[in-house]
């Protein structure tokens, strides 16, 4: 009895558990509606699509952990540019795969350096800096990718869509990445410095943490992850498009918040990101399965997201 109690307390006092509870609830509601049909496929699809939200979510989470005001709004534009650049350079050829990946990451690198440069040199809040830079990045992508419809190289398309017993290979890879990131956040000097800055920037500075260097690395990491997401997403969806990044602004922020990380920074967790990403995808699937029109679906998505945020804020206040 004591052990059950202990397990219960261990689990349900974790902020991230609610995202999983939500995901399972939504999944059950859907399969009850379909009378069990497609339950497995739905999970496979959820894993596949959640992967992309998780990649950008991790980056956004690191940035948000830095404390109030830290957020990256350039993620959608960054995804689009990375996807467009990679597709154009690789030109559907398998042997140019590495070049494409490198080009994507380089574009992410430049974006990250530029973002931080604006924040630092112009002394402006990150929201404005990343928003201004996203205007420029998106224009670059539009101009560079005019009339673009290039298929991804076969290897990339296969790699991003292949499944083992219903589990997408890509999802496995990103689960490993999530674990590595969790270790970085909770066990390395870099990760702990990010949390320290988020909890109290002044104290962190007085404690000798190189605050600006850590911030630079965090924004860079976020931009690199977004460009990786752009590269993989273009492979997954059969090519890059100019609005491919659009939905990832909400997704990247929502998975962090729904996943139980503190919006005010300083306290974050990685398991929640997966739970939240699965929840978000399954939610849309559920509304689709119920046969609702696009308008109703969007409205319900909005209401549920706001409701979840309201509830989770309440939850955190009471504990």
């Amino acid at each position, binding site marked *: 009895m004591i052990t059950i109690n202990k397990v219960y307390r261990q689990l349900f006092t974790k902020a991230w558990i609610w995202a999983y509870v939500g995901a399972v609830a939504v999944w059950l509601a859907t399969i009850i509606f379909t009378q069990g049909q497609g339950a497995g496929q739905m999970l496979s699809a959820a894993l596949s699509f959640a992967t992309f939200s998780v990649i950008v979510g991790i980056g956004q989470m690191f940035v948000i952990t830095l404390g109030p005001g830290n957020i990256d709004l350039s993620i959608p534009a960054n995804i689009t540019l990375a996807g467009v650049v990679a597709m154009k350079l690789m030109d559907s050829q398998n042997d140019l795969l590495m070049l494409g990946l490198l080009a994507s990451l380089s574009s992410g690198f430049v974006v990250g350096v530029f973002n931080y440069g604006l924040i630092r040199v112009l002394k402006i809040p990150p929201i404005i800096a990343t928003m201004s830079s996203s205007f420029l990045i998106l224009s670059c992508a539009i101009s560079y990718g005019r009339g673009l419809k290039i298929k991804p190289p076969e290897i990339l398309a296969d790699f991003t869509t292949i499944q083992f017993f219903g589990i997408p290979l890509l999802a496995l890879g990103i689960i490993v990445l999530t674990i590595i990131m969790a270790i970085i956040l909770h066990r390395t000097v870099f990760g702990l410095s990010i949390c320290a800055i988020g909890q109290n920037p002044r104290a962190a500075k007085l404690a000798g943490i190189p605050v600006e260097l850590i911030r630079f690395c965090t924004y860079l990491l976020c931009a690199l992850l977004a460009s990786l997401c752009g590269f993989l997403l273009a492979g997954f969806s059969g090519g890059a498009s100019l609005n491919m990044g659009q939905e990832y602004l909400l997704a990247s922020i929502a998975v962090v918040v729904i996943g139980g990380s503190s919006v005010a920074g300083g306290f974050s967790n990685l398991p929640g990101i997966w739970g939240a990403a699965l929840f978000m995808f399954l939610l849309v699937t559920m509304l689709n399965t119920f046969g609702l029109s696009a308008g109703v679906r*969007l409205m319900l*998505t909005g209401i549920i997201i706001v409701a979840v945020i309201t509830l989770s804020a309440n939850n955190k206040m009471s504990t």
Partner: protein
Amino acid sequence: MSISPRLFRSFLPAFSLSFILIAIFYLQPRTVSYFGVNLLFNLALPIAFATLAQMCIITVNDLDLGIGAFVGVVASIGATLLNDTPLLGVLALLACILAYAALGALIHLRQLPSIVVTLGMSFFWLGLALMILPRPGGSSPVWLREIMTFKTPWVPFTIIALFVVAITVHWLLKSSAYGVILRGVGGNPTSVERAGWSLLKSKVVMYTLAGCFGVLSGLALIGLTTSGDANIALRYTLLSIAGVILGGGEFTGGRISPIGAVLGAMTLTLTGSFLAFLKISPDWQIGAQGGILIIVLALRALINRAESSK
């Protein structure tokens, strides 16, 4: 230099607008006319209203990532309900404003991050707009079209309207007693509260004002386009933030400027024409808006540095 950095900073929005306007006049002298100016600033009014809505939210240290979608809802209502059954249309618009007020209360009472809530709400608004108007169409009320295309003597209607709106809101927020309290909420909420003013009420007032400006933006927009579209104003979300910043607004601390915000919105409206006259592809329009934003912010950083070195 005898000009103080502070003065220079408050004139920056006007400088940037004049710079682009003069460049356009130079590139295409035919725009220096009643008709030309009217065309250049054709879409400035709805953008200016959206910018003022955003400014209200920024005043209390929040940010609204759903205003563009909200303007879309208003446009959809305006092109359908307001035209077919005016009474129902007006009630629907009032309900929209009430929803904004409620949003302000929710964000304050639960201490929610406005960015996430409004981003979530943007889905709600877009969905609502799609339900009202599933595909582009409808028709704006005739009276609305007549107002928006009203021909005033000497100076185009748009310019007069922008001027009047800017002065009114400036007076409201900068000179009236309650305006000072409202801005104080962004500056130092604790001291405003200790002085006996309700923070909840201030936030609700600002969100309500934002809702009103959102409605005005949507109505002005369909008065110009004559029909509605749910996606019509999604760009306005980021444009409005850019407009506030261009207009000299600070992101925190309730430091805002309504006149500046209107000038900022006008500057952003001009970028499209500016690029066209420079024969640069419209692909770069958003990029140019970002570029102007960065240049202005850089100038402001320089001014601030000059100020602090004094």
